[in-house]
C-alpha cells in the first residue's frame, strides 16, 4: 500500500512546481492586492499579519507543497496548518488564487452565511484545520506527523506560526514533543514580524532570542528573510533532507509588508483598511513601490 502511494505521488503532480522566483513574486503581489480588497470589503480582519506572511504562503502553494485545488482531499497532498488562524485573509487569498474557490466567494469573507469564516475554517475548500486560538497548530502538526510516520506516508507536514504565538505555553509543549519524537517530517515557518495585537513583541512579551529557544528545544533552526522567495524556497527544500529533527524556519518579516503606511504599523494588526486607504494601497502594490 505504501509503495503504491509513493508511485502515485511521483506520477501525479497536480500543480507545476518549477515556478521562478519572479513568477512567485508576481503572484504574491496579486495575493497582497486581494488581502487589501477582501479586508476592506469585510470591514474587519487582520491585514498586517496576512501581508507579512503573503510571500511564505505564496511560495508554499505555488511551488513547495504537493496539493491539488481540483481535489482538495487528494490523498497524496502535503498537510498545511495555518496555526496563526487570524492570517485567514492571506490564506484565503492564496487558496482562491490557486483555484480552490472563486475570487467572488473570497470577497464574502466574514459575511453571514459565507463559508469564508473570519478565521481559518475547514468548510473552506483547501483549509485542512480550523484555527484561530493561538498555540494549537503545532500540536495538530504533531498528530499528523505521528500518524503519517506510523503509516509510512512520505507527505510533509507544514505549519505557519505567528510571532506572538511563541507566547503560548502549548507551542513549547508541542515543540518539545516534536523534537523528542524526532518528527523530521515537520517543517514550520515562524512569521517573525515583530508585532502582536497590543504592540511590538519586544514591548509586550519579548520572545527573543527566538532561534536559540527553538534550537534548545531540539529543532533544526534556520533564520531567513521571509520576503525573499529564494530563501523561503531553499530553506524548505533543505528541511526535507534533515533527519531526526523537525525544522523551524524563522522568517524575519515586516508586518503589513508591501503597503508603505501599513508596514510596521501596529494599528493594522487587526484593523481593515478603509476605502481611501484601500485605493492608496492597491496603487502602491500595482506600482510595486512598497515591496
Amino acid at each position: 500500500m505504501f509503495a503504491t502511494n509513493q508511485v502515485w505521488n511521483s506520477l501525479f503532480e497536480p500543480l507545476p512546481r518549477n515556478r521562478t522566483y519572479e513568477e512567485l513574486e508576481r503572484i504574491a503581489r496579486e495575493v497582497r492586492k486581494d488581502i487589501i480588497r477582501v479586508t476592506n470589503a469585510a470591514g474587519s480582519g487582520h491585514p498586517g499579519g496576512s501581508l507579512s506572511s503573503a510571500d511564505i504562503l505564496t511560495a508554499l502553494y505555488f511551488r513547495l507543497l504537493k496539493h491539488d485545488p481540483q481535489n482538495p482531499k487528494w490523498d497524496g497532498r502535503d498537510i498545511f496548518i495555518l496555526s496563526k488562524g487570524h492570517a485567514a485573509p492571506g490564506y484565503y487569498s492564496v487558496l482562491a488564487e490557486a483555484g480552490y474557490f472563486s475570487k467572488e466567494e473570497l470577497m464574502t469573507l466574514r459575511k453571514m452565511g459565507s463559508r469564508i469564516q473570519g478565521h481559518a475554517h475547514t468548510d473552506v475548500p483547501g483549509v485542512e484545520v480550523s484555527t484561530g486560538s493561538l498555540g494549537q497548530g503545532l500540536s495538530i502538526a504533531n498528530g499528523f506527523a505521528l500518524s503519517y510516520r506510523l503509516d509510512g506516508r512520505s507527505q510533509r507536514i507544514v505549519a505557519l506560526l505567528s510571532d506572538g504565538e511563541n507566547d503560548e505555553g502549548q507551542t513549547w509543549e508541542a515543540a518539545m514533543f516534536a523534537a523528542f519524537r524526532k518528527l523530521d517530517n515537520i517543517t514550520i515557518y515562524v512569521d517573525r514580524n515583530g508585532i502582536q495585537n497590543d504592540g511590538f513583541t519586544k514591548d509586550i512579551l519579548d520572545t527573543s532570542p527566538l532561534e536559540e529557544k527553538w534550537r534548545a528545544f531540539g529543532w533544526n533552526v534556520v533564520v531567513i528573510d521571509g520576503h525573499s522567495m529564494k530563501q523561503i524556497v531553499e530553506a524548505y527544500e533543505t528541511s526535507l533532507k534533515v533527519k531526526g529533527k523537525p525544522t523551524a524556519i524563522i522568517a524575519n518579516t515586516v508586518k503589513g509588508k508591501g503597503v508603505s503606511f501599513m508596514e510596521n504599523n501596529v494599528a493594522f494588526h487587526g484593523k481593515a483598511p478603509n476605502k481611501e486607504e484601500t485605493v492608496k494601497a492597491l496603487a502602491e502594490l500595482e506600482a510595486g513601490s512598497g515591496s
Partner: protein
Amino acid sequence: MSPAAVKMESQRKEYGRALVELGSKNRNIVVLDADLSVSTRTVEFGKAYPERFFNCGVSEANMITTAAGLAMAGKLVFASSFAVFLTGLTYNQIRQSIAYPKTNVKIVASHAGLSVGPDGATHQMLEDVGLMRGLPNMTVVVPADARETYQATHALASFNGPAYMRFGRADVPPISDEGSDFAIGRASMLREGADVTLIGCGQLVQACLAAAKQLETEGISASVVNMSTIKPLDNGMVDRCARDTGAIVTVEEHNIINGLGDAVCSAVAAHYPVPVTKIGTMDTFGESGEAGELLAKYGLSAEKIAMAAARTVDTKKRMR
C-alpha cells in the same frame, strides 16, 4: 447492604482491557496519555502496542490537540488523564480542535468526582460533565460500573465523533448481574416503581438502587434509571418517568450545577413538568478523605437519596 458481600470492580481496569481488545482488532486505534497511564490503565494498551501508544508527558494541552491531529489524519484516538486535567487544562483545545471540527477523538477521564479521595479538592473534578455537555457536537457518557465501562469503551470506538467519558478512581459494585447492553444515548430502567423515579449516573446508580429498597420499606415505590449518557439525553425515558411517577430525583457525583440534574430538569420543564430534586455536590469543592466517607459527608448516600425522594413525593402531592 453488607459491603463484604459485594464484589467490587475497577472501571479503570475494564477501560484498559477494552482498549487492548480494540487494539488487536483495529490497527487504526492509537492511545495517548499525559503521564498518568498507570492510573488510567492506558498502560495496558501501551504494553500491548507500544508503537501506537504515545505518552505525551505532563502536557495535556499538547496531548489533546495532538490527538485531534491524529484523528484528522484518520486515526481512531483515545486520550486519557485524570478528569480535572483532561477537561480543565484543555477546555479551549477541546472546543477549538475537537468539538468545533467534529474530530473523532474519545476523551476518557478517570479519577472523576469526590471518590478520588485523599488527594483532595484539587484532584476531585466535579465540573467536567458541565464543561463537556456545554460544547456543541460533544457526546457525554458516564458509565455506572465496570461492565458498563467496558461496553461503553467498545461503543465509543464504533461511534464517529467527539465524545467524553468519565469514571472514578475507586472500585465500584456492579449495578446488576446481567443488566442491559450499553448503547450511546439510551438510558436503562433498572427497577419499575409508581411514586418517584431516581435517575442516576456513574457509581451512584448503585446508591439509587439501595435507596429504592429503603423507600420500599417506607411504602414508597421508586423507579431507578441508569442515565449513562448525559448527552444526548434519553428524552423519551425522562418523559416516561415524569408521566409514570410524577416525581424525579437526580443523583450524580458532580456539582448540582450543569450536570445530569440540570439536563433532566431542562427536559422535564420542556415536556412534562413535575417536581425534580437534584442530588450532587452543592456548588462546593471537596476535601481529603476516604471515598466512602466523602460521599457520605457530601450527601451522596442511599439514605440522603431516600430522604430526598420522600420529600419530592410530598411536593408532588402538595401540587395536586
